């Protein structure tokens, strides 16, 4: 067990290092953006002097590396800073949005992950049959269309033509859960269609790869049923690649949903970030970037740790 603990600690340290590097990249990235908040707020008519005064007031006149260290220091104390345009703490702006994004992503994951793995197992079990081909072709077709296109098609069919579901997903915090779920059916379906194929195909490929190993032949010679061979003999050995792809797609559900949020006017973090890039409200943009990067790093770390634990050689050393 000692080896596993060390591996996890090692992975955690690497994750922290990655986040530090990412924070630097985000800071430099936002520095490169042309113009600054002082110019954006005061508009074209402002004199050089008023702009400079506002800069001094906001601390923008300090050299970049000092501002980075100040920003990093307050980050480490849990302070994401204050929005330059609204004057509210950034955390208050992000928290409700993040909740919404996680709600949409979580619901989509609950639908997409079991569905993808299930379809992958069925496709592997009936490899080469019409069922396998139907699953492969339909999921591939879904992933081949851009997500805004899928979103608008769904809106057109279910909201405009059939009038079953609302076309916009404008959540408000006071809504009961049932109403929220109805609102997000279409964005959730769009996201599911986008991530399904990747996970399903990896499950299928990983299981089929394991199916050619000698212990699967042995299972067949022991008279095991085809379903048992897939579920008990092949799946546990195919877990590592499946976990990696599933987590990669979970990360995509959280950080890659900007387009879907825009299509359905969904109040998530992605929209917040896009809005504030336009306003040059750097603390908000930086915080959104950090949230995305943190989610991505954390999920990948979890994937690595889970894939490691899926290996019995590491769980049970000699």
């Amino acid at each position: 067990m000692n080896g596993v603990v060390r591996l996890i600690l090692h992975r955690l340290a690497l994750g922290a290092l990655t986040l530090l590097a990412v924070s630097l990249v985000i800071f430099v990235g936002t520095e490169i953006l042309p113009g600054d908040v002082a110019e954006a707020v005061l508009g074209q008519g402002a004199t050089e002097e008023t702009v400079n005064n506002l800069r001094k007031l906001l601390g923008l006149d300090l050299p970049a590396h000092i501002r980075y260290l100040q920003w990093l220091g307050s980050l480490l104390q849990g302070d994401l800073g204050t929005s330059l345009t609204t004057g509210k703490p950034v955390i208050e702006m992000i928290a409700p949005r993040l909740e919404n994004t996680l709600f949409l992503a979580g619901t989509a994951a609950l639908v997409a992950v079991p569905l993808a793995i299930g379809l992958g197992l069925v496709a592997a079990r009936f490899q080469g049959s019409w069922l396998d081909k139907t699953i492969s072709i339909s999921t591939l077709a879904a992933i081949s269309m851009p997500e805004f296109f899928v979103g608008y098609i769904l809106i057109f069919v279910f909201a405009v033509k059939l009038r079953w579901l609302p076309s916009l997903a404008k959540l408000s915090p006071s809504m009961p859960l049932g109403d929220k779920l109805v609102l997000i059916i279409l964005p959730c379906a769009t996201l599911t269609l986008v991530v399904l194929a990747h996970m399903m195909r990896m499950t299928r490929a990983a299981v089929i790869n394991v199916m050619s190993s000698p212990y699967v032949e042995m299972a067949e010679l022991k008279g095991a049923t085809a379903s048992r061979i897939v579920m008990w003999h092949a799946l546990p050995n195919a877990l590592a690649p499946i976990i990696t792809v599933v987590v990669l797609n979970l990360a995509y559900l959280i950080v890659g949903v900007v387009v879907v949020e825009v299509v359905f006017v969904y109040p998530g973090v992605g929209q917040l970030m896009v809005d504030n890039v336009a306003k040059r409200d750097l603390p908000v943009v930086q915080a959104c970037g950090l949230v995305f990067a943190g989610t991505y790093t954390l999920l990948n770390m979890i994937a690595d740790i889970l894939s490691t634990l899926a290996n019995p050689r590491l769980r049970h050393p000699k």
Partner: protein
Amino acid sequence: MTAADAKVLRIADLHVEAQDSQGQWHGIVKGVSLELDRGEVLGLIGESGAGKSTIGLAAMGYARGGCRIAGGSIVANGQELAGADRDELRRLRGVRMAYVAQSAAAAFNPAHRIDRQICEVPVSHGLMSAEQALATAKRLYRRLRLPDPEHFGRRFPHQVSGGQLQRAMTAMAMICKPDLIVFDEPTTALDVTTQIEVLAAIREAMRGEGMAALYISHDLAVVAQVADRIMVLRHGKLVEAGPAERILREPAEPYTRELVNVRRAMAPEKPEPATPPQLEARHVTASYGNGIRVLRDVSIELHRGTTLAIVGESGSGKSTLARVLTGLLPWEAGECLLDGRPLAKRLKRRSKSELRRLQMIYQMPDIALNPRQTVREILGRPLEFYFGQRGAEQLRKVEGLLEMVELPRDLVRRLPGELSGGQKQRVCIARALAAEPEIVICDEITSALDPLVADGILKLLLRIQNESGLSYLFITHDLATVKAIADEIVVMYRGEIVQRGAKRQLLSPPWHPYTELLLSSVPEMDVRWLDRLLAAREVSSTAPEPAASLPAPRP
């Protein structure tokens, strides 16, 4: 009981076909018939490609991917298996007939505990409750002399040794008391000393449980210890069949005679070397990254034009020594010298000339050759790297190398996949020779080959040595090979040298106990060899594990 039921297995005119890359079907078993009585052990013997494994699998109504049972009948206990539907076969497999694969390490599922895999058969077929199955499994562990039978099965496959795993797989095959067990080379992947333990345990359990078996092996001496009757196969056809004793004593067919008396290559006696050693390791100590020491204070000397054999079982450190000498694994203490000059620890620090003079040939030619390069490219690469040869000049040299290793010139355009195992190993030898080396390190180069093919390779190496004065460092676990090719021998055990000497001296008493154990473990062409050996060991030692009774290796 009807007449058909009296036989456990009756195969008549079996034809199995395999599909090639063009989609054409070719016969790999061509009209083989056999019968097996209750409790009888039939040995199937032949080189790779003879169709013995295919027949063994067909006896369970199974054909590997890309193969099909194309004709004939397979009747097990009066039931026709050829053309039987999947569910019917599934109900019989594991219950009425069972399979023991060559590599237990690969045939056990790495994700589950041994107990669960063994109990899977009776429990999933609805024959026993989980508790009954576990009790039966423990009884079989005891019967197969596995250590700590109460807790043995709680472990994962990677936590037990190869020999133990092979016995566990035998327990898995026996748990439903099948009428027939197919053993497919069950001891081939094991060390000679482990092979004896497994062989003895299997034989005893078979006799105790009264099951019939098909015992498949390429090693006639091994088959003769367990089989009542032997069938010799070649190219998918029967060569001859008969009682084991008769096949060994009076083989009727020329091919069987060849198998019985493999005409061993034999190195000529050479005078004692007077020159200083060409390659030398002095007090070398080495470990892998995990801190486990694999070589302790190892010193060897290889003299020009001679062959030094390094003998030992898996884990003795003999392949590590090769990795150290070639610079693949930097050593921790000691030094290595080539022609009296110290070699750099790391491959990257060695000069081109040092690299050229020291070449290596590997155990698995399949892995050692790039499957996407033609023979011309494989042999051309070292010619270009060391001598800058290209074009027509290079092609002439490549053809010359092929001639030297007794391969036809028109192989130059072939890919490794289109060559036989023996041909591939000859290409590997030619690749080593392309560098015009002075020393060639041969790491188990014949152990993946059939005996007759391996013998051809040894004869080739001796001829080349005779013509060009090459030196060989020959790493092997096979003492028959050592007898054939070595001038001097070093015996290694757990990272240390336990005995060394000239061949004649080392192969005759007095021996170090480990050398004696190795020597006596080599199967002989005698049906009573195992009986005599086990009886002798019973008398000479009361310790259950022969290796455990060894004294500490000499400093």
